[in-house]
């Protein structure tokens, strides 16, 4: 058992790494794409997709008690029917 907040911290670290790659991808797209609506629209769709998911997760995270302990025993029991 470990604090649930560890999951959130791990998720944020992965997100930071992800943001670097996404920014680089976006800059490549804007740098080498043809100037026009298609380039801006596709970049906007990509960005909005990412921001929407982050906003949803942030909205959910506001309602979670991150101080509670993560119990993987009951998780395994619930999913696989394995008793701890």
């Amino acid at each position: 058992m470990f604090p649930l907040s560890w999951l959130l911290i791990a998720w944020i670290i992965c997100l930071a790494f992800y943001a670097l790659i996404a920014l680089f991808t976006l800059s490549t797209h804007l740098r080498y794409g043809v100037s026009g609506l298609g380039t801006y629209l596709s970049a906007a769709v990509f960005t909005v997709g990412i921001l929407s998911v982050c906003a949803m997760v942030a909205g959910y995270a506001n309602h979670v008690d991150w101080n509670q302990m993560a119990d993987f025993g009951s998780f395994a029991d619930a999913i696989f029917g394995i008793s701890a």
Partner: protein
Amino acid sequence: MIDLKHLPNPIPGERLVFFLRRHPITLLPLIVSIGAIILIPIAVWWYIQTQTPEILDQPTILTIIVLGGSGLFLWAWLFLFQYFLDYYLDMWIVTTRRVIAIQQIGLFGRTVSELRLNRIQDITATVKGIAHTMFDFGFVEIQTAAEEKRFLFEDVSNPNHVAKIILELAEVDRREHLQDAVEEFHMPERQQNTSEH
């Protein structure tokens, strides 16, 4: 960004004739994948809610589902956008003077090739396969005097028409170059007639 009205290294009197990308049908795997990454989480969520709703009562499990699911979706979204970039940043530009081929190779590779029309010797258009024939897209290969084929238009729409137009443009460009050479070296008329025969 590439501005089609102001191409790099412009040639005087140059006009844009074609701006080509691969046929949009080649994006079908991408569209199916996007549909899958949107529908699969919804289906899984519906299954859990209807078949094993007691799982959602446990905050640990719900948190893992939300964080894990969002992480998977974000990485899949990034991967699909990179697949789209591979399509979107590959382009072939045909003007009245040259052909420019731009190929994006992953995120860290890019090849830009340029070929003057008067150097084209042979063009081959290939349409092969059921999907290619139904949607009329295929390959256009341009052969120059060099041993290696330098230019290949992949999965472009209406390849026979593209090949025909490029051949015509190459012929016009060669004639204009010949006239320029004649004017430059002030060849007398008698010599001109001999060379034409």
